[in-house]
């Protein structure tokens, strides 16, 4: 049981909607951070965010106490060449969702404050245009979670 507790907490954390007076506005799922190979200090974080409201929302920032800098980036493929560009915000359509996944949007986690390995948990706080915030716990993994 004690071994399972963190997993349970994680599952709860991953799906707990942003707490707001008038009810939740967003929900996150499929949260994970790719473990950095040796010698690399930049990690990529992935998740999906669902907008539960009937109005468009914008993800304005992602923060983490475990990293010096956190940015949102998008991998853009053009003619078979991939490049990355920083994005300031990401729109989530009304009652729609946006996925941060390999080859697309991802969170760049830079200057880690400690070494992170598979099984470690990272706190992320997502801020939205309606003033709400969503705190999620992201597990560090070698491979993507099974869908």
């Amino acid at each position, binding site marked *: 049981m004690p071994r399972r507790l963190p997993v349970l907490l994680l599952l709860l954390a991953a799906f707990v909607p942003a707490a707001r007076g008038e009810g939740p506005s967003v929900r996150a799922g499929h949260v994970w951070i*790719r473990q950095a190979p040796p010698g690399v200090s930049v990690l990529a974080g992935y998740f999906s965010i669902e907008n539960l409201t009937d109005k468009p929302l914008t993800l304005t920032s992602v923060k983490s106490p475990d990293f010096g800098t956190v940015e949102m980036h998008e991998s853009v493929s053009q003619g078979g060449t991939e*490049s990355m560009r920083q994005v300031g915000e990401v729109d989530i359509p009304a009652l729609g969702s946006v996925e941060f996944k390999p080859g697309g949007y991802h969170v760049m986690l*830079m200057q880690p404050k400690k070494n992170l390995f598979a099984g470690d948990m990272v706190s992320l706080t997502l801020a939205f245009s309606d003033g709400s915030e969503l705190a999620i716990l992201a597990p560090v993994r070698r491979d993507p979670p099974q869908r």
Partner: protein
Amino acid sequence: MKSKTLLAYAGLCILAIAGGLLAGYLTFHPRHPRPVTEAVLLHEAKPLPEFTLSDTAGQGFTRAALLGHWSLLYFGYTHCPDACPTTLSELDHMQGQLRGVPAADKPAVYFISVDPQRDDLALLRNYALYFNPAFIGATGNVESLKALTAPLGVDFSYDPADRKGDYGVNHSTFVVLVDPEAREVALFTPPLQPKRMAADYLAILKYYGENT
């Protein structure tokens, strides 16, 4: 001429034409059809040029190093948080799919860094091994890299550095399949599916085995 004789002549003519067509087909057409693959199978295998890079296997990474076995080449850089770890992890899973294949038929996997300014062989060794103990890292100066990348159509360029000196590298994301004669034969383009890649790889191996 009697109509019966005419008919016999016509019959012979048709037989001769059909025979000629069949002989032509057998001579100029491979006995086995090209496999249907998700991978882009080049119409004609393209010999690689001479190139000289360094690799983590301790030998020079040259055209000769590619002779005698199948290889997969992927070009990236270690400071790449998204595309490169994703691809290398998928290539590891593809190797897992080929578990039952004889060692001689398995591809060698090369991760070639196009960011020699930050990636040295020590870093590349740890990086490549992290994904699979058999993966080989390689790099060289930009000019030497271009000798290999340009003919393969692999592109790379550098973004301007930020105030901390960090910069992104733009690079092609396809994986190049090279045959034991050091010829480019196919490209795997993302999103890579390890199972499909393994199946395509085996189909291409079989096709080349039967038609050479």
